[in-house]
């Protein structure tokens, strides 16, 4: 199997680490090898958090700049900040409020590099369901709807079910599913064009 490189970025406290663990565990459950790297320490004190996740037979834990296939960003600014990680043809999923779109300075670069960029109001989605801290799961659900590859959406869902503490399981799945629904709708729309 070819290697798959993820970058997950956001701010301390947004649950980047939990997202990474969910994807890693899903891969592990399928018998795939994983290596991940994370930033510690300053993350709690307002800093940017970047998590690297590599699936496949890899030796190093860090994703090399320009070789991430997927970028999941819980914050708009952090999405731009970690853009240099994305490879040609890579896909970018960003948590941003409704009405926000890609900055005009960035658009030509994305086009030229054949990168797909999808914005999704993950924070609002999570808040609507009464779980404002679960934007990470909403974005994960949205992303999962576009997944054919080694991490199918229903297996990510299974991992969330197994990994969530009892009192959060139901709401976690609800948020993930809502993100997945929205993602599916958007995917169908895009394919219909």
């Amino acid at each position, binding site marked *: 199997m070819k290697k798959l490189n993820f970058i997950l970025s956001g701010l301390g406290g947004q649950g980047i680490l939990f997202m990474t663990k969910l994807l890693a565990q899903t891969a592990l459950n399928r018998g795939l090898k994983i290596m*991940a790297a*994370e930033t510690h320490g*300053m993350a709690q004190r307002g*800093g940017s958090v970047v998590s690297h996740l590599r699936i496949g037979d890899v*030796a190093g834990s860090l994703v*090399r*700049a*320009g070789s991430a296939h997927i970028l999941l960003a819980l914050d708009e600014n952090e999405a731009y*900040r970690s853009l*240099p990680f994305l490879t040609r043809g890579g896909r970018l999923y960003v948590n941003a409020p409704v009405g926000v779109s890609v900055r005009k300075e960035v658009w030509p670069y994305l086009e030229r590099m054949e990168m797909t960029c999808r914005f999704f109001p993950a924070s609002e989605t999570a808040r609507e369901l009464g779980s404002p801290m679960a934007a990470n799961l909403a974005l994960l659900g949205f992303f999962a709807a576009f997944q054919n590859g080694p991490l199918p959406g229903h297996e990510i869902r299974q991992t969330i079910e197994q990994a969530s503490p009892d009192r959060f399981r139901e709401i976690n799945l609800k948020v993930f599913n809502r993100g997945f629904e929205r993602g599916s709708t958007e995917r169908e729309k895009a394919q219909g064009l």
Partner: protein
Amino acid sequence: MTHQEIFLGNGAIALGLLEAGCQVVTSYPGTPSSEILPEVVQLVRSEDLNTYVEWSTNEKVALDNAFAAAVSGKRAACCMKQVGLNVAADSLMSAAYVGTIGGLVIISCDDPGPHSSQTEQDTRLMARFAKVPVLDPCDPEEARRMAGLALDLSEEFQIPVILRPAIRVCHARQALLLGKIPRNGRKASFQKEPGRWAATPKFRFLLHEKLNRKLKEISRRFDGLVPYNVHNLTAGKSYPLGILAGGVPYAVVKDILSEEERDDIPVMKLGAPYPFPERLSEDFISACDRVLVLEETDTAIEYFLRNREKVLGRLSGHVPSQGELAPETVYQVMDRVLRSLELAGLKQSGQGEAMELVKGLNLPVRKPTLCPGCPHRASFFAIRKARPKAIFTSDIGCYTLGLNLGGVDTCLDMGAAITMASGFYHSFAQDQIDQPIVATIGDSTFYHSGTAGLLNAVYNDARFILVILDNQTTAMTGMQPTPGLGIRADASQGKKIPLERVVAGCGIDFIEVIDPYNIGEMIQLIKKAGDYVKDPNGGIAVIIARHPCVIAYRDTAIPEKVKVAVTDACVECNFCLDRFECPALYKDETLGRTAVNQALCAQCGVCIQICPKEAIVAV
């Protein structure tokens, strides 16, 4: 029965130690090593082992305690960050000569970059200096196996062994296969042998001779230490370029060569670089016209290569001499070297364009800052208000971020807040200059290395105000306990030794405890302390600013929450943003004044006291 589980690198090391029968583990917190001890505690609990664990007060203390356990015949380990090894260096140097009976592994975690250290020094050079073997893992699984190998080697040769995982191993995650961990039932014993355990200089000479012989033997062992020291040369073949790499850079090189499908470039892996495997490296180098050395963060391997003409590395300027060797950096170095030797370069171009684009976006700078509600913020505000012209000597911890409030002028190493305060005092006093000095140090840092400096300062009659910022935890490294509340590594209750008692023991007569949330009171107290310091019959004044860390004591740190808002009385002077710097206070462009981000606000209510126009109010 085995199962797979994802482990943090530091957890893999904990696992490796216990699998190898380690019975004693000591540590002082320091990024990137801090998780090792808690992971040991968790495994000891879940596997029902009988390992003794301890948060020691500093790294030298940790090493000495582990050393004694190893002398008593048990397998022992101590864990620290790379600069912590500097603190333990005195013990290490001596221990190398003396050796142990049970295995002793010193785990010293490096921080190339640095990400959160005062230096990015290379522990492998410390191993060379101390004359002890060192192992350099390239991933969590290897770190796990090397922990066991270190203990085996240490016991076989009766020499301490250093394990040096870098941050990209410590904080990496990888799936490991787990089985049952047996208990180690070895009992402590001590055989009197003063010629060894209390060796005086004449005996030290003999021990040194013995040490040198051990190192020669280990070097030969390292020549064949598969799979840690290996190369992939084809016998009889010669190559225009070979790569010599160890630790994390080895993993990076391996990935690059595999992606690029470059089997024309042989690699020699050096996971056990000292004592240097002379024969193995000679085999490799003689088969290559040129050799590129990729290692972090210094020339531990490169320095041992005798034929300088062949070697490309830091010394020749081909590899940067500072900073982390991130994968993209390694890629660029390899590509440049290949092309300069007129060999085929690597396929992809750099990320220069994307980096330029991002720079031009002027994204908000996310500088680290104290948390909303942090008592240190209140302390620094009060200190600066009360003594604006003072020199603010400070130390290492969360409170170093007092820099953002203009409350930190110096930060050198653990305990230097106090030692530099007395140093500055005497330097200015010599010229009869009355220079106020306010030193700030954390509780854990004070227990670590505050007392020696304070005793010295009292003994030599220095004069300054010392504010011990007591948030009752070791916060920056992950909320580890201190002797202040007496909680031990296994969560049991140990002896409580409050700061007041230790400070009094250092000869201080002015000791006052205050809650820094009361800014007005704290300002008054600092002024009173200043009078005492100036009084010829006075001395050093110590203020203990005590309030629990809002993260460590999330439920109890702010017993009475106060919702706050900024009124129209705000004149946009930005005093609060510049001098109080709480992340929950921000400039609202639409409102045209400062506003409170209720999602971030900890509701500590401290900001109400600081606005000169009283525009911040409780609602």
